[in-house]
């Protein structure tokens, strides 16, 4: 089980804060196939006018490992996630590449997201992301790394506004017994309005 907690701060044009919560149950169906349920994605948001808790959606995630990062030249996986909430539906597909080199883990994710929301799900947006990460295992319990995220946002599925975001930041992971905690801090290197300037993500996981 994994609990995600992400605090994000937006400062452009106005300051606001949001804390996102995700609660994931992951099952290893086979050695190559994993399925997850996000029982509830919800968030707390606060700005100069109000603060509130909001339920966002419930999601299902499926991952199939095509190749293995140890025995094959590159470990490749395909990932599919469906999120559905009130007047909200999201489709997210990913190609995940990973390579383990001794104590180093290198990963690359290419993600395509499509969102339908609002009255009659008439508002559309899509997003293309590429993420690059490297992590080094200092000891069997502790890893540190760096993440780089490059986003292309397409409001109404068009690229007229040419919105591009770049985020970069470090991460650290600590594991003990059957639990682990991973923290990632990401700062926006671009200056896109209404996008988070900084976010801190914490994942606490426990295996049963």
């Amino acid at each position, binding site marked *: 089980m994994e609990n995600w907690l992400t605090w994000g701060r937006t400062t452009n044009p106005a300051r606001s804060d949001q804390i996102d919560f995700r609660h994931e149950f992951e099952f290893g169906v086979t050695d190559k196939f994993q399925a997850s349920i996000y029982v509830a994605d919800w968030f707390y948001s606060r700005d100069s006018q109000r603060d509130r808790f909001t339920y966002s959606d419930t999601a299902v995630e499926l991952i199939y*490992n095509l190749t*293995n990062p*140890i*025995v094959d030249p590159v470990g490749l996986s395909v990932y599919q996630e469906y999120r559905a909430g009130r007047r909200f539906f999201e489709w997210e597909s990913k190609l995940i590449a990973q*390579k*383990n080199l001794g104590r180093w883990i290198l990963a690359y994710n290419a993600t395509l997201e499509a969102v339908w929301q609002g009255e009659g799900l008439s508002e559309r947006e899509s997003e293309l992301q590429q993420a690059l990460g490297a992590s080094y295992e200092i000891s069997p319990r502790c890893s540190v790394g760096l993440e780089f995220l490059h986003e292309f946002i397409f409001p109404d599925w068009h690229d007229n506004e040419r919105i591009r975001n770049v985020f970069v930041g470090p991460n650290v992971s600590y594991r003990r017994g059957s639990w682990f905690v991973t923290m990632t801090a990401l700062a926006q290197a671009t200056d896109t309005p209404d996008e988070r300037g900084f976010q801190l993500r914490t994942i606490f996981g426990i295996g049963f």
Partner: protein
Amino acid sequence: MKKTKNPHLPLRVFLSLRERIEVRALSLLGPTIATIYVCLLWGCETSNYAPSVTPQMARSTSSELPKLERGRTLFVHRCIECHTLPTIWRYSREDWPEIVNNMSHRASLKPAECDAVIAYILAVRATER
């Protein structure tokens, strides 16, 4: 009528050409980095962390080949869910069974699967070095 030549035209053409090249270069940057990254990864051989099963391994440890194959598959799939894969030489022959047994719960290994992983690791140790 004689056409007057625009003195700024060559500069404008040059700038526009340069801008086009810059835009082109930027748009190619992402895929280029990704391609180099994948090539670098592809070239890095790491299967020595989990050598392939050979008939010699089976003979030297009196284990059946399918059991060793199963052990290798479990070793490379389950163990990396929590940590990087240690080299098999990092721990002694005597230590490995205890290490695998201690981690079996976290890796969701059943007793027969645990035995297969241990058999594979000991078979690698018995045949190399």
